[in-house]
C-alpha cells in the first residue's frame, strides 16, 4: 500500500512540476500540456546526427533520468514513505546528482554540434560554481541532525525548521539547487536565446522525452531536497504527513521555476566569481555559525 502511494505521488509530483514549468514559460495553464507534449514527441522522428558519438548521445538522457531518480530515492515523503532510507542519504543525494553533470557532458559532446558541446562544457563550469554551495550547507544540516539519514534530518527539525535555524545555509542551498537543476536564470547549458537549446538542441522524439523527463525529475528532486533539509519535510500541524510534503515540494518547485524568470540569465563568469568570492566564504561562515549555535542552543 505504502509503496503504491509513494509511486503514485512521485508520478503526480513529476507531472505537477511539468505543468508548472509549462505554465511559467508560456503563461498559460494547461493541465494536459505535458501529456500532449509527450505524445507529440513520441510521434516525432528520432534523428541521430551523423558522425556523432552515438553511445554518448544515447546514454546522456538516460543517465540524466537515472541520476535524478536515484537522488529522489532517498527523499522521504513521510515516515515510511521512502524508497530507501540510506544511512548516508544526504551524501547519496549529492552523489547521484553529480552524475547529472556526466550526463550533460555526454549529451553535449555526443552529437558533435557546436551549441550542444558548448552547453555541456558550460555546465561543468556551472558545477564548479555551485557544487561547494550544495555540499557545505548539507554538512551543517547533518551537524544538527547528527546523521546523514534524510529521515533523521527531518526529525531534527521538529522544534524549529532549518530555514529558521540556519537561514544563510537555506539561501545558499536554494541558489545552488537552482543552478544544479539548471532552471532560469541558471539555464546556461540549455539556454534558448544564447545557445538555441544548447545540450537539448540535437535531441528529438523519444530521446527528448527522456531528457525532459529527467529534467523534471531533477527539478522535483532538488525541490524536495530543499523541503527535507530546510523546510521540515513532512512536518505540519494537521492532516496526513505526505500531503504536507507534497504541498511544500510543489510550492518550492513553483518558486524555483517562476522566481528565476524575473532575472536575466547569469553569465558564467559572474556565477563563478560570485560563488567563489562570496558564496564559499559565506558557506564556511555558515558552518562556523551553525557549529557554535549547535553547541550553544541545541534545539
Amino acid at each position: 500500500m505504502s509503496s503504491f502511494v509513494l509511486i503514485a505521488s512521485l508520478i503526480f509530483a513529476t507531472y505537477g512540476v511539468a505543468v508548472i514549468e509549462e505554465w511559467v514559460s508560456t503563461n498559460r495553464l494547461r493541465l494536459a500540456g505535458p501529456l500532449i507534449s509527450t505524445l507529440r514527441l513520441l510521434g516525432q522522428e528520432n534523428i541521430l546526427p551523423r558522425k556523432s558519438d552515438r553511445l554518448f548521445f544515447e546514454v546522456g538522457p538516460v543517465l540524466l533520468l537515472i541520476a535524478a531518480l536515484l537522488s529522489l530515492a532517498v527523499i522521504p515523503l513521510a515516515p515510511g514513505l521512502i524508497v530507501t532510507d540510506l544511512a548516508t542519504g544526504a551524501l547519496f543525494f549529492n552523489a547521484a546528482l553529480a552524475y547529472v553533470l556526466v550526463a550533460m557532458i555526454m549529451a553535449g559532446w555526443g552529437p558533435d554540434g557546436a551549441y550542444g558541446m558548448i552547453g555541456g562544457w558550460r555546465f561543468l563550469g556551472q558545477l564548479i560554481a555551485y557544487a561547494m554551495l550544495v555540499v557545505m550547507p548539507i554538512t551543517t544540516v547533518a551537524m544538527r541532525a547528527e546523521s546523514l539519514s534524510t529521515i533523521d534530518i527531518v526529525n531534527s527539525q521538529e522544534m524549529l525548521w532549518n530555514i529558521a535555524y540556519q537561514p544563510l545555509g537555506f539561501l545558499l542551498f536554494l541558489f545552488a539547487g537552482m543552478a544544479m537543476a539548471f532552471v532560469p536564470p541558471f539555464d546556461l547549458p540549455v539556454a534558448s536565446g544564447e545557445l538555441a537549446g544548447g545540450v537539448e538542441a540535437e535531441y528529438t522524439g523519444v530521446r527528448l522525452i527522456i531528457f525532459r523527463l529527467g529534467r523534471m525529475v531533477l527539478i522535483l528532486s532538488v525541490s524536495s531536497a530543499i523541503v527535507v533539509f530546510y523546510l521540515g519535510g513532512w512536518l505540519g500541524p494537521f492532516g496526513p504527513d505526505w500531503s504536507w510534503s507534497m504541498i511544500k515540494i510543489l510550492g518550492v518547485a513553483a518558486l524555483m521555476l517562476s522566481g528565476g524568470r524575473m532575472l536575466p540569465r547569469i553569465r558564467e563568469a559572474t556565477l563563478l566569481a560570485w560563488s567563489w568570492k562570496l558564496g564559499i566564504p559565506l558557506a564556511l561562515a555558515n558552518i562556523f555559525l551553525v557549529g557554535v549555535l549547535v553547541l550553544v542552543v541545541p534545539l
Partner: protein
Amino acid sequence: MSVQVIFLLAFGLAAVWFGIVVFRTHSMVRSALALLFSQTAVGAMFLVMQAEFLGVLQIMMMATEMSIMAIFMVMFMMDPGGLGEMDMKHQRKLSLWAGIIAFGGASGLALFGDWGPIATQIPDAGEQVRLLGIELLGRSMLIFESAGLTILTAMIAATSIAVQPPHRPKETPDKSKEPYQVHNHGGAA
C-alpha cells in the same frame, strides 16, 4: 552471501572492463568517462562490501573529478574527438612491464598481506560514519590536519602553475626552427 559475491565479481569485472576501454578508445572524452565508470564500479563494489560511506563517497567524488579530467584532456590532447583514429599509446614495452609489475605487486599484497581477522559483525552504515568521525577527531587527528596542509600545498602549487602564463618555446619561426635546422643539416650530412 553468494549473491553478494556474484555482484562483487560483476562490478569488479565492470571496473576492469571500463579500465580497458580507457585505452582502447580514440576519443579523449570517452577515455576520461570510461575511467569514471571504472571508478564508479569500484564504488559499487564498496557498497556490495557494505562499506557504504566509502562507496558513496567514491561514486560522488569521481563523477566531478573525472569530468574535470575530461575537460583538461580535451584542452590539452590532440584530436580529443578521436576522429583521426590515432593511436595514443606510447612506450608500449615500458608501460607493459610497469603494468605487469604493478599488477603483480598489488595481487601479491592482496593475497599475502595480513588483513587481520575477518570481521563477522559489520557495524551498520550510520555507525560506520560515526566511527569514522570519531577516528578523525581522535587517533587520526594529526593525519587529518596534515591532510589539510597537503591540500593547501596542492592548491598553492596548482594555482601558481595555472595562473602563470605557461612556459613554452617561442612561437616565432626563426627561433623555433633554428635548433632543428642545425641538427637536421647534420643528419643529412
